[in-house]
């Protein structure tokens, strides 16, 4: 639906805007972002110098510099060498390559082809995977490269493919098309040469940005024909990655004009609401800024994989060890063959031998034998481990992506595992660092309260207020359930962004209020002081607004609902329908906008200067209380105190507040400012921004206070429950937010990170003495005092924690203190303190601080951290954390682009971690353990057999059979386990969140478990080898009297290994699907199929296994009897161990499996579940005391205590 409606709307919009000259109003819009090059404002003078050497002749396309892009890793030529190189960066693969090469010498214990085959298969599989991925990329690229655009050629604009575009081409881009390259805007369909651009693909922001060409070009270029004579030279910076800066100039008719980002149209952004634009190409293909920006996300490896590498090294060294042992024995045996000229084992002809078996040079033979042994025991190293894990993780990621429970219907967004190599890390998260706005909250603002002229209006109750009401001891548990009901239930007004109820001011009643003149000015300010664009629906006449931020939209909507409807924005003015207090009628008023003083994070305020119809000039200003109060006129303060108090109350209620004030300007003051401001804006010197700032600052003084607004940013659905579950799972949650401390604390209460009875340790520098100190301007002294203060506060906090037991602490620290706490000498103790606390909230923190805190937790604790956020300010922490999760929410895609996993809502984190994370961790660790087990089992039988061949290097099994062990007979079940196994069903993962602790404590991939599996592999091999060789040693094994030979005995032992290893999987797997059965029994069946098929091929190929099964083994009862005996003997020890373990020393998931079984008998009653859950909480891993249930428990405890108290008091009957 979005498409049709959207285009209709945009068409209407464009018609309306056709003749607007918004350039003035929007002058700030493009410089809004801090641009890197602004650090070097003198850049314009450097044009032509180093880094600024590009010269573009507009209209004269250059030959070099194709616009085609390629994001592929390989091309046809480089694919082979490059992907192979990638493969051989793994130690295991290098080992197999060396083994494969050596297999062509006489050293090889088996034939060369069988040595190379598994490696080739594994490499091929990996390369096919790479090729498919790369092919997809190539197709995407080629789709982009073959898009067409209109280029001016031979007097007309004709269609040209993107890839054929050259620097200097003049292009005409139509509405809703993407820009094919970085262009300099020359002219547009609008008279004032503006155009709207949507930069979703660049920064994810969905609002439109305005660009405008230089007047000189727009005046010259009015239509297609004017380009025949157009020539210009553009000199500008070299290609770079700065999206928001551009330095250059354009020379037309020997006049130079400076270019700015205002004229730059970036590739991959989209032209919107503008019929067409003309532009000249300056950067093509990979030179374009978006491509320069496309840097690789730092690749992260999971802890499990890092540990796996260590295990591989361990195995490699044990491989070397047993090879050395074998070689020593071999050397001795070989030396003994010829003693004093007397031949001993004459049948080996030691007198006529070669270097490999030379009894006269046993040392050399032994060294060569060492190489042979290294090849033979290579089965210790699971060659297919890496590829199997990759396949498994891809499939796991598929499950995550397709989980309907993590699909957000409203925004049509499923979860998306962007990198699959961190799946199991999701099951090991120890600390979550979360952003607040947009992550915990919806980032959709609702105007809920206001304070005008000292009177507070608005009766709506915020979620935080509810939470606080509960905190203060009003009825508890019953209401708790209602906590997350949609808020609109009581007010019938379903206006987005407006949740204000107060009959005193609504429906025009405000005229009867004592300060109605102030109220009028207040509403007028709301309707005028902003940068929104109205959109009138032509059928219904309804007005909606497109705003920079949800806050602004909320204000304009509020003004509209209260009778000050902003409906038209013209080139220089704003028109309102206003309620006239005298006549009581709607009248239309328009205001001439003289200047807009933009909002930025340093100024923390925005102002407009308007002239009303009576000719009076006003400065309307709105901003944060901290900056606004100091700008108020000192005389006017009748309700200043009250307003301040209201603001504090609002902040307490978790609301975002702004102070509104105005001033009437004198004519000459206005003119003076106008001159000064214009001068500042037009200056191109280094201190341009400072000058503008100064000019604005001089005007925004002596304001008259109107009141304050309060906007609520509502908690996302399910956030408190999710946090509760995560806390129960023993995960620590830190909130890193840019908000005010009060707001942050209140949100903390609302989402149960804080609760009544928790001891709060607040570290802040907003103390009186520090503030006093700051008044004096000795910066060093302030810094030192602040640092000492912070350290002292931290130490006091630590003392407090150490002194008490059983209490839960919360740490709240503000950004300024954080700066000092994160310094090298303080961060250790800060971390100690923070770890001791149940909740940590860092407020007023900058993006950099967020990243630094993340790094501190990551490196300081050595545990897995997960950072979750939704905005560009969270990118640092998302990239810094072990796992970055992006919320694909309102603030665009930048966080998602940097993340490893993206989800639509915070609450999905619960399922992502507790279910998928746990499963993936449990699966991958079991899978790796099993992998080592199966390969060690196989490898050790080979080694044991060596002892019976005087370590000559003769393999127990046939070459091809060995080669296919990893690839065919044992590979699929383990992959199936890695994909499908569930130790505990999803429902129970969520019901018993403590299960998750198996991950952070790494219980399933601890060394004892890994080594246990390896030892078990050795034990299995010993049992299999000795049982089968003893059972079938030298007597006849058939009734017809034949005896075992090497091939038959080897095949029998191999059969036992295949059975044991596959049935072991049956014991290990805790969740069977059809696929698992097929894989396991199929693996065994494949072995018999192999025996028959391979045995049927000509003996030239099948050598020793020719007809070994059909002719010899199948007809022998002893073969089958021994298979059963040996497989059972190999498995019973583990089975017994596992039974005893689950029975007497169960792991956590075993316990839950029992509960699950118990519950299977009786239907799940919810009531029992609740009680059970409460009982469960008492045994939590560590009483973090965070979360809804913790609060409930604490409250219940309070009630219980009071009951006891009442029972004692005789008054109560």
């Amino acid at each position: 639906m979005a498409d049709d409606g959207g285009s209709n709307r945009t068409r209407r919009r464009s018609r309306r805007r056709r003749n607007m000259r918004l350039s003035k109003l929007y002058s700030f819009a493009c410089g809004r972002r801090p641009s890197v090059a602004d650090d070097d404002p003198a850049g314009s003078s450097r044009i032509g110098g180093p880094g600024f050497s590009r010269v573009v002749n507009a209209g004269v396309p250059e030959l070099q510099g194709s616009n085609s892009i390629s994001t592929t890793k390989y091309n046809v030529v480089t694919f082979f060498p490059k992907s192979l190189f990638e493969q051989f960066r793994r130690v295991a693969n290098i080992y197999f390559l060396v083994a494969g090469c050596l297999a062509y010498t006489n050293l090889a214990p088996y034939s060369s082809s069988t040595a190379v085959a598994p490696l080739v298969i594994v490499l091929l599989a990996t390369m096919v995977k790479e090729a498919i991925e790369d092919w997809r990329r190539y197709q995407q690229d080629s789709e982009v490269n073959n898009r067409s655009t209109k280029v001016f050629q031979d007097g007309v604009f004709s269609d040209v493919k993107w890839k054929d575009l050259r620097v200097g081409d003049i292009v005409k881009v139509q509405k809703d098309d993407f820009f094919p390259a970085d262009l300099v805007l020359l002219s547009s369909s609008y008279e004032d040469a503006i155009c709207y651009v949507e930069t979703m693909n660049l920064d994810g922001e969905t609002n439109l940005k305005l660009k405008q060409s230089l007047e000189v070009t727009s005046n010259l270029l009015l239509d297609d024909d004017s380009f025949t004579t157009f020539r210009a030279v553009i000199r500008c910076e070299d290609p770079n990655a700065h999206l928001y800066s551009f330095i250059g100039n354009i020379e037309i008719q020997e006049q130079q004009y400076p270019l700015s980002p205002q004229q730059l149209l970036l590739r991959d952004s989209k032209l919107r609401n503008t019929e067409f634009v003309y532009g000249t190409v300056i950067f093509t293909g990979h030179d374009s800024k978006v491509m320069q920006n496309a840097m690789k996300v730092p690749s992260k490896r999971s802890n499990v994989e890092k540990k796996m590498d260590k295990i591989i090294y361990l195995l490699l060294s044990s491989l070397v060890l047993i090879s050395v042992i074998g070689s020593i024995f071999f050397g001795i045996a070989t030396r003994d063959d010829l003693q004093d000229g007397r031949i001993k084992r004459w049948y080996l002809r030691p007198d006529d031998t070669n270097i490999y078996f030379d009894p006269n040079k046993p040392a050399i033979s032994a060294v060569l034998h060492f190489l042979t042994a290294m090849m033979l025991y290579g089965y210790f190293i699971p060659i297919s481990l890496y590829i199997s894990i990759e396949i498994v993780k891809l499939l796991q990621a598929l499950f995550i992506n397709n989980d309907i429970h993590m699909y957000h219907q409203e925004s049509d967004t499923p979860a998306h595992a962007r990198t699959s190599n961190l799946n199991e890390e999701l099951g090991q998260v120890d600390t979550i660092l979360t952003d607040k706005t947009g992550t915990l909250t919806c980032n959709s603002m609702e105007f809920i309260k206001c304070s005008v002229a000292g009177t507070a209006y608005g009766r709506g109750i915020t979620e935080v207020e509810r939470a606080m009401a509960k905190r203060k001891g009003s009825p508890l548990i019953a209401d708790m359930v209602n906590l997350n009901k949609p808020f609109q239930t009581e007010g019938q007004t379903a206006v987005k962004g407006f949740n204000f109820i107060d009959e005193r001011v609504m429906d025009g009643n405000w005229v009867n209020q004592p300060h109605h003149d102030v109220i009028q000015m207040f509403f007028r300010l709301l309707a005028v002081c902003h940068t929104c664009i109205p959109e009138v629906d032509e059928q219904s006449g309804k007005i909606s607004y497109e705003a920079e931020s949800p806050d602004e939209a909320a204000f304009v909507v509020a003004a509209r609902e209260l009778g000050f409807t902003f409906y038209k924005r013209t080139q220089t003015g704003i028109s309102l329908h206003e309620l006239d207090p005298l006549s009581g009628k709607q009248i239309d008023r328009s205001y001439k906008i003289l200047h807009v003083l933009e909002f930025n994070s340093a100024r923390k305020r925005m102002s407009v200067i308007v002239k009303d119809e009576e000719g009076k000039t006003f400065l309307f200003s709105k901003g944060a209380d901290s900056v606004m109060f100091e700008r108020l006129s000192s005389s006017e303060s009748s309700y200043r105190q009250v307003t301040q108090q209201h603001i504090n109350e609002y902040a307490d209620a978790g609301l975002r507040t702004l102070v509104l004030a105005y001033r009437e300007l004198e004519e000459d003051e206005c003119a003076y400012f106008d001159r000064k401001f214009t001068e500042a804006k037009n200056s191109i010197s280094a201190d341009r921004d400072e000058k503008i700032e100064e000019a604005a600052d001089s005007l925004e003084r002596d304001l008259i206070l109107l009141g304050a607004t309060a906007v609520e940013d509502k908690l996302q659905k399910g956030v408190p429950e999710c946090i509760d579950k995560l806390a129960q799972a023993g995960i620590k949650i830190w909130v890193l937010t840019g908000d005010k401390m009060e707001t942050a604390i209140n949100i903390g209460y609302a989402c149960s990170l804080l609760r009544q009875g928790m001891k709060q340790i607040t570290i802040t520098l907003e103390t009186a003495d520090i503030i006093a100190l700051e008044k004096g301007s000795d910066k060093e002294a302030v810094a030192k005092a602040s640092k000492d203060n912070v350290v002292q506060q931290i130490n006091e906090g630590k003392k407090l924690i150490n002194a008490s037991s059983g209490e839960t602490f919360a740490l709240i620290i503000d950004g300024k203190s954080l700066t000092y706490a994160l310094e090298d000498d303080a961060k250790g103790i800060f971390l100690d303190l923070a770890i001791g606390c149940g909740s940590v909230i860092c407020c007023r923190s900058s993006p950099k601080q967020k990243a630094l805190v993340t790094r501190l937790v990551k490196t300081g604790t050595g545990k897995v951290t997960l950072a979750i956020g939704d905005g560009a300010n969270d990118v640092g922490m998302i990239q810094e954390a072990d796992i970055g999760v992006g919320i694909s929410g309102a603030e665009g895609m930048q966080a998602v682009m940097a993340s490893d996993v993206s989800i639509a809502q915070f609450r999905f984190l619960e399922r992502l971690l507790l279910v998928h994370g746990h499963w993936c961790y449990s699966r991958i660790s079991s899978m790796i353990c099993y992998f080592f087990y199966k390969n060690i089992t196989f490898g050790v039988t080979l080694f044991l057999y060596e002892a019976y061949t005087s370590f000559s290097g003769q393999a127990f099994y046939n070459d091809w059979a060995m080669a296919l062990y990893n690839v065919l007979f044992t590979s699929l079940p383990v992959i199936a386990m890695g994909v499908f196994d569930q130790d505990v069903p999803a429902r129970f993962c969520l019901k018993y969140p403590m299960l998750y602790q198996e991950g952070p404590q790494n219980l399933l991939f601890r060394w004892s478990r890994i080594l246990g599996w390896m030892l078990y592999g050795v034990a299995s091999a010993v049992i299999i080898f000795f049982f089968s060789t003893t059972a079938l040693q030298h007597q006849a094994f058939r009734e017809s009297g034949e005896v075992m030979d090497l091939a038959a005995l080897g095949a029998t032992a191999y059969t036992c290994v295949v059975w044991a290893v596959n049935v072991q999987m049956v014991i290990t797997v805790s969740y069977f699907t059809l696929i698992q059965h097929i894989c396991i029994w199929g693996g065994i069946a494949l072995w018999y199929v192999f025996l028959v098929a391979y045995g049927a091929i000509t003996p030239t190929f099948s050598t020793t296994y020719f007809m070994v099964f059909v002719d010899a083994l199948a007809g022998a009862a002893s073969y089958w009897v021994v298979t059963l005996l040996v497989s059972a003997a190999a498995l019973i020890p583990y089975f017994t161990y596992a039974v005893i373990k689950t029975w007497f020393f169960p792991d956590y998931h075993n316990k839950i499996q029992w509960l699950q079984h118990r519950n299977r008998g009786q239907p799940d009653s919810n009531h029992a579940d609740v009680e059970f859950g409460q009982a469960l909480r008492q045994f939590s891993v560590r009483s973090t005391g965070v979360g809804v249930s913790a609060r409930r428990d604490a409250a219940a405890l309070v009630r219980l205590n009071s009951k006891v108290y009442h029972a004692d008091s005789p008054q109560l009957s």
Partner: protein
Amino acid sequence: MRVRSPKNASLFGSLTGRLRLTRHVAARGLLSLPGIPAPIVGAFSLIGIVFVPIGLASLSASQAIVELVDRYDAECVSASDKVGFIQDTKTDKACTRTITVPKPMKGPVHIYYQLENFYQNHRRYVKSRSDKQLRYKDAANLIKTCEPEGTSADGAPIVPCGLIAWSLFNDTYSFSVNKKTIEVNKKNIAWESDKSSKFGSDVYPKNFQKGGLVGGGKLDEKMPLSEQEDLIVWMRTAALPTFRKLYGRIESDIMASDEITVVIQNNYNTYSFGGTKALVLSTTSWIGGKNNFIGVAYVAIGGICFFLALCFVILHVVKPRTLGDPSYLSWNKEAPDHPN
């Protein structure tokens, strides 16, 4: 880039549905069965119930087999320099052994020779053969793998080449029961597949044992390889350094307390490497030859399983587990701050 049409969404939904469906057709694994003893005890008992009878059957089959082993390498050489004696081609190496049969042996009685400490599985030895040469008439020159027994002294290719063939066992036995000579059937001692596919019926021995050093037995140059069953048996290399190989069969029954006299041509040199030689006469049953290990192991494993089952039952009676007790779900029982 992130455009999702409603159509996509429904596709997505149905895909999920399908995935979920497959996951529902599933059962819980063995060990995730609850810890209540019934299934576990049942599993162990079942193993016991299956294994003990199989074990007893195997054991009785093995016990019924009559196996006579006569080691003769020491007794058949009287000289002190045993190696010198055996390497001397001129001396008469006949040696007579008498065996008394303790129990009746029902024919066919299989005759084996048993070598000990003979590494037929040595890599150098195993590889020293040419399968193509054994199979095809024209492949006589394919002797690359046969080193050092590839060519005779004059450089002509040996057929069959290689160390295995060269070291062919060449002791011979002739039997008489109660002084009456008994025919030894030497047919069908090799695998049928070997005779038909691995050894050519048109390949005849050439230059065999004409190298510098004579190894073991010689071959009849008139007989094709596919009929040289002693060679075929020998060429199937044994897995372990102690092995038996089928020599022939006595088709008739032998009564208890019959005296078997064996005249042995003691040619084969096991003295150099300290190996032993033995003559084995054995009957067979469905399980093959005599080996109590299979039966004993089966009974032992079955017994252990019964024992374990019993232990679990007793444990359950003595110390019953309340399942689903939430206190079991406590992490606090373990160290609160787990290292790792």
